[in-house]
């Protein structure tokens, strides 16, 4: 119904504005109904303005800015209707170190509500996990799960090592 959609949509917009400002430490963003008179069927545009920049459609932002904005929207949706668990597959891939730090800060808050399973290649994200699993394919084509931990290997890189059995 129109009322139901508009009330959820309004809540989502407000939450999105907040989460965006937290991720970008400033700036502004919004959702825009392309056809205000036809709220039930109108397409939705996402506009965003990272701090110090101009407001524009999300498609004109940089690779990392776009991803962080989309994650802000997905997290906003989650915060309005938290599910008991959430699975994220490599969503941190396009983010730089600073943005991953901010993303992890918001993620940690969301664990008050829910359990998270996150698939990642990123060392910072791994450092933030409460529990770490590795998947390997020692035998080609056959997956195996192992417990792993992080270790600094002395030459400026952190390595993932199998945990002691």
């Amino acid at each position, binding site marked *: 119904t129109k009322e139901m959609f508009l009330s959820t949509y309004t809540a989502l917009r407000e939450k999105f504005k907040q989460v965006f400002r937290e991720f970008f430490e400033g700036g502004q963003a919004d959702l825009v109904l392309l056809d205000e008179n036809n709220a039930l069927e109108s397409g939705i545009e996402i506009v965003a303005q990272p701090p110090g920049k101009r407001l524009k459609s999300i498609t004109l932002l940089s690779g990392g800015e776009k991803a962080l904005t989309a994650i802000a929207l997905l997290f906003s949706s989650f915060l309005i*209707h938290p599910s008991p668990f959430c699975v*994220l*597959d490599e*969503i941190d891939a396009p983010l730089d170190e600073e943005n991953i730090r901010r993303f992890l800060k918001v993620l940690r808050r969301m664990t008050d509500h829910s359990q998270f399973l*996150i*698939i990642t290649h990123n060392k910072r994200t791994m450092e933030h*996990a409460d529990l770490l699993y590795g*998947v390997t394919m020692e035998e080609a084509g056959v997956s195996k799960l192992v417990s792993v931990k992080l270790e600094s290997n002395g030459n400026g890189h952190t390595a993932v090592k199998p945990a002691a059995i």
Partner: protein
Amino acid sequence: MYLKKLEMLGFKSFAESMVVTFQPGITAIVGPNGCGKSNIVDAILWVLGEQSTKSLRSDRMEDVIFNGSETRRPLNLSEAILTVGDVSGEIAGQFGDFEEIAISRRLFRTGESEYLINKIPCRLKDIRDLLIDTGAGHKGHTIIEQGKVDQLLNASPLERRELIEETA
């Protein structure tokens, strides 16, 4: 409710029985490209009732059964069991008294499917209803698959609306 564990046997590249035990907070899964991490996500989608082969990155549902490697023959059965805890009070109907619920899905290469809740045979619909009761049914933002963020970004305004309606 929270996830306790996921067991897989014969699901995609998990030719041998594997158990992912969950804890509160953040569980991270790491590993090289192609080793099977996203397959774990697919297993969760599948055991919760996903019927779209496209969402499971497959041509046909049969493709989720381990289809062999250089050293192993294909298997004839794919099974995934998701055990969730602390559900008392959240679930309506016949399963409402259980503290812990084990959701099972099996697919045989013959095409036969089986669905079980705490070892009691049931229908796919029962599994999906269960998840709606516990609030895990909001598929839109509960499971963000690899590439889903790009999809949201590249979507047309109308496609984007559908994605947003799904989540909220």
